[in-house]
């Protein structure tokens, strides 16, 4: 790189820093975030992509929650858990190495799905959290709470929000039937996390 190009680069970086400061937004994170499980990281080619959504699908005791928690533990810093089902058991999270003081749990309670998706979007876009885990039960069809709102449109906004915040968005989903997020990576987990398959994205589509 020539001296002129380096100088131009420095000026651009300075301007970006100023814009970030004006927007009160942290520097965008890039690359991949290790999940804390070597087999999964190898499958993903390093870890879950930052600035993107990843879907972890599995049955009620498949191990998807433990995988999300180990990723939160590995991330360090602040993370958020959108606990739409109000089922996360914090003592187990602590046992997996999660610093509970740095895990924001958001329980939307009986509010509609739009509210939970709005909150997820805000958390993903903020850039304040390394990982945002979304554990929501979405019905098929229009999203409850907004007439005619398409779940796909709402979910696309989540992808854009994750990009904006440079956040690792982990979407926990049942194996079949629920709306699918526009995820860069989709993992299928079974048998308490002993079997993990990569459906799309990441490395070469193997199973661990």
């Amino acid at each position, binding site marked *: 790189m020539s001296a002129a190009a380096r100088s131009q680069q420095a000026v651009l970086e300075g301007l970006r820093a100023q814009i*970030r*400061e004006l927007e*009160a*937004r*942290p*520097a965008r994170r890039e690359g991949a975030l290790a999940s804390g499980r070597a087999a999964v990281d190898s499958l993903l080619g390093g870890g879950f992509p930052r600035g993107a959504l990843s879907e972890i699908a*599995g*049955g*009620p*005791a*498949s*191990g*998807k*929650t*433990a995988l999300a*928690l180990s990723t939160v533990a590995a991330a360090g810093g*602040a993370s958020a858990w959108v606990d739409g*089902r*109000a*089922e*996360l*058991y*914090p*003592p*187990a*999270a*602590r*046992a*997996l*190495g*999660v*610093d*509970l*003081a*740095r*895990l*924001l*749990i*958001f*329980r*939307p*309670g009986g*509010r509609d799905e739009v*509210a939970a998706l*709005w*909150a997820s979007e*805000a*958390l993903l876009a*903020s*850039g*304040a*959290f390394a990982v945002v885990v979304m554990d929501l039960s979405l019905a098929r069809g229009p999203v409850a709470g907004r007439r005619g709102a398409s779940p796909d449109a709402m979910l696309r906004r989540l992808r854009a929000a994750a990009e904006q915040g440079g956040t690792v968005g982990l979407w926990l989903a049942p194996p079949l039937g629920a709306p699918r997020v526009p995820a860069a990576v989709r993992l299928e987990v079974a*048998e*308490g996390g002993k079997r993990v398959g990569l459906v799309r994205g990441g490395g070469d589509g193997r199973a661990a």
Partner: protein
Amino acid sequence: MAVQLDLAMGPRAPRVLALHFPALPLQRALAARGASALPAALVHEGKVVLANGRARAAGVVLGSSVVQAESACTGLLLLPGDEAADRAALIGLAESMLALAPSVEPAFPEVLLLDASGAPLLAPPGADAAGAERALAERARRLAARMGFRCRAAVASGRGVARALARAGREELAVVARGGEAAALAPLPLAVLELPAEVESRLLALGVRDAGGLARLPEGSLAHRFGACGPAAARLARGEDPSPLTPHVPRGLPEERVELDGPVDRAEPLLFVLRPLAERVAARLAGQGLGASRLELALALDPRGEERLTVPLARPGASAARWLLVLRERLGALALPAPVTGLKLAAVEVATVGAEQLALDDRPEVQAALETVLARLASRFGEEALFAAEPVERWLPEGTWRAAPFSGDAGAVVPRTGGGSHGDDGPRPTRLLSPPRRLVAEGEGGRLTAIRLEGRVHAVLALEGPERLCGEWWSDPFRRDYYRARLEGLGDCWLFEDGDGTLHLHGFFD
């Protein structure tokens, strides 16, 4: 740092930063109406007593009648005087300045005196004493400007000296080194010393017109002619003023108000006038080391009535910019029943916060982003929807944690193999059902072979347990035998059998 002792000279005068707010009543009245760019005059008993630069440039003369002033300047804003509001404004400024100085004294009607002894602590690295004091004065002036007030500053040894130099207004910012006070005061007119009117007029009659002239008079003759006032005035003129400050102690929570020039029925213009209000409340809180955890915005409606918004904040803070993000959202969602004629913003719930949360100039970006999103969510969903989990020493599984305010600050991480609150308990599920779901057990020869859940039968593929959890006789006695069961179609589940033999599904090892 070496401490200088000056025993032979008696007590050393403290270093004081004086801020003089010229025409403070007019500045206050304009700030309260959010109209600082207009030509304006303050009126008392039908006469103009103060006028801003724009009004004076248009021909408004002090002492003229209202009619004369209005005919001299089209569009002149005439404002009534309000002494109580002027005092409150100076006190508000004093409270905000506590962020910069250990003690602040309001010297009514227009001056604040700040203890400048801590200036080196706030100075940039490598700054000398004068540079540190200049930096302190500049910060104080910036803070005042953020609150909507303009002031002149002077740093000197002694409260009276600093006050006189600031009032003289020869420079917008003057720093007089220790020992240079008499020379700095010498050319200034007697009026800046704020002597008793009778003393001043008699000195003027004697031909003493400036502080230098007064300083040269022999103390004996001054005492003879003016009593104790005379030598005191001469000492002040010589820059000898060791009297300490009388610090202001804040009482009550800050609130600021603004009256609008005309009724407003849209959120955007309201936000525009809300900004300086928020800046003032935030600065006053920050000065006291406090952050608001709840704000109240009262909107005065036209022709009468009031709309009140209570705004919870996720984290206590004193950052007006963060508050405005939340207020923008709340105002945007509000259907105004009538146009608004005035606003009042108050911090109704506060907490002591650390310097890193006060957010004056140097908040890290991540912290700002965190606070913003927490405030937005708390505003929409309520504070109870957002929390961090805190371990509790209990045996009842659903009682082993409680919700605590989320700060984002690191806590103690204790990686463990089990998940309960007690040291020797077994593995815990990642998901806990509330309430537990009742199961129907199916067995053969005393052995559990399957369970029925919501009409579906799941074969038991493996079973570990029991782990007996019981106790808490003092509050909520219970006895449960827990099992980890691998169920066909579900996976590893956490079941318990209670005291009367009923089986429940309590969680998933997901």
